[in-house]
């Protein structure tokens, strides 16, 4: 029977030899050297102390990556390793994992930074394209009283007519002919400039913007130059007679063609009465605005009183008396306050 186990292995009689066992135990005195014992015991105690190699051996390798960084640091302190091969010349993927992961992280960070910079530049580009407030707007805002908090409604045509008539009545002294022409041209330029600016900034809100620039309640300052425009209602009526098609296209809004003999196409024509009604004079120059405004100088004789009168004279002299009288009647309706020349007095009497 085996003294250490319960197996009956030694039951075989031929395997039992007490004499040999005794002789062997007598001679079994060889032991390792004491320094080897101390070395092995120290190695066993050192293995129990915390360290990278011990963690890898004893427990799960959750912090393996951290020890790999320590390994890299130790290699850097002692000189660069023979990357990516170990000293034995064999491939070690762990030596490649750290540089590769570092490179991947750097690439990721650089790509992210570049992407952010690109998006920021794109946003700045879009914001840089936004229209800046015009100098005229700023000037008009400074000169205007505080705006009411109520939403501003676009002016109705009847209101515009009343404004223009009130302004016309306030200027009882009618200027002379050259002054009226110069004033009309200047008013036209101002109107076109401001209208273009308003359309560039807020195209859909152009009428409202113009109305805020020139509120109807604000009195016209002394520096305002109001051209001696005829009654807009008469202009509209005449326009309806002369251009029925054009009137159909713009039925609800009166025209302001007669101000300076200038006819403006598109929506700028809707804004001109407001500008002429209450807009203070803006001294700022915007030459580029003229390029944006589709201005067409009306070449019809009705647009210019002098030319219209010249046409009437020509008709009268050519024998078309009835036609000349008809044109003169129309002229008087369009320009009721325009002084007629004395050579047309017979026609006026016939009228």
């Amino acid at each position, binding site marked *: 029977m085996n003294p*250490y186990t319960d197996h009956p*292995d030694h039951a075989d009689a031929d*395997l039992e*030899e007490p004499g*040999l066992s005794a*002789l062997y135990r007598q*001679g079994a005195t060889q032991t390792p050297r004491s320094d080897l014992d101390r070395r092995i*015991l120290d190695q066993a105690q050192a293995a129990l102390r915390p360290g990278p190699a011990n963690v890898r051996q*004893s427990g799960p390798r959750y912090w393996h990556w951290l020890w790999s960084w320590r390994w890299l640091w130790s290699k850097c302190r002692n000189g660069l390793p023979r990357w990516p091969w170990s000293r034995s010349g064999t491939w070690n993927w762990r030596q490649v994992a750290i540089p590769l992961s570092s490179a991947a992280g750097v690439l990721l960070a650089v790509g992210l930074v570049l992407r952010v910079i690109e998006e920021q530049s794109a946003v700045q580009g879009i914001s840089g394209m936004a229209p800046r407030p015009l100098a005229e707007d700023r000037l008009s805002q400074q000169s205007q009283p505080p705006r009411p908090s109520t939403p501003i409604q676009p002016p109705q045509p009847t209101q515009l007519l009343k404004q223009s008539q009130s302004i016309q009545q306030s200027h009882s002294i009618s200027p002379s002919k050259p002054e009226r022409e110069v004033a009309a041209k200047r008013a036209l330029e101002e109107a076109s400039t401001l209208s273009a600016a308003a359309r560039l900034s807020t195209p859909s809100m152009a009428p409202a913007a113009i109305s805020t620039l020139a509120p109807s309640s604000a009195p016209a300052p002394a520096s305002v130059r109001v051209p001696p425009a005829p009654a807009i209602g008469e202009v509209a009526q005449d326009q309806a007679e002369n251009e029925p098609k054009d009137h159909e296209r713009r039925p609800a809004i009166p025209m302001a063609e007669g101000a300076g003999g200038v006819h403006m196409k598109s929506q700028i024509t809707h804004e001109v009465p407001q500008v002429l009604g209450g807009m203070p004079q803006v001294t700022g120059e915007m030459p580029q605005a003229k390029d944006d405004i589709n201005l067409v100088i009306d070449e019809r004789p009705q647009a210019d009183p002098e030319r219209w009168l010249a046409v009437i004279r020509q008709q009268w002299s050519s024998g078309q008396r009835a036609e000349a009288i008809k044109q003169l009647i129309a002229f008087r309706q369009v320009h009721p306050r325009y002084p007629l020349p004395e050579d047309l007095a017979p026609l006026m009497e016939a009228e």
Partner: protein
Amino acid sequence: MLGYREGDGEAFAVLYRRHRGPLYRYLLHGCGNPATAEELFQDVWTHLIKARGTYRVEARFTTWLYRLAHNRLVDHYRSARMTGLSDDDLEALQDPAPTPAQRVADADCVQRLQAALGRLPAAQREAFVLREETGLSLEEIGACAGVGRETIKSRLRYALKTLRAALEDCL
């Protein structure tokens, strides 16, 4: 070993004191050279220290320890063969013929037993030494050597027969 795996250094000291002599003698009888035996001895213990985290209680610790030692001896034999030693050289190294000086020295029975053990084949010597040093059963000795119980029993029987013949006057 379980205590050492949990961090008890004193448990390892107890294990070492218990197995240091038998393991060293097993390796010494296996390689025949004290320096090589010390080297193998340190290798076995170093491997045990490193493998403490993966130690599983599947057999007796002695069986596991001598299995490590047996594998290390096999590796040593293979490396010796790769260095140019032929099988005949290895056989001569493991079973050297007694010289006249050795015959005189073998006057003592103990020394004669040591000499006779040196002349035994490595497998038979391993079986005898494991049996005498560890007291393991035939199955456990077979587990250490990587063979079956009957094989160990046969090797042990041949070894005892040879030793009895060599030390007939001492027994």
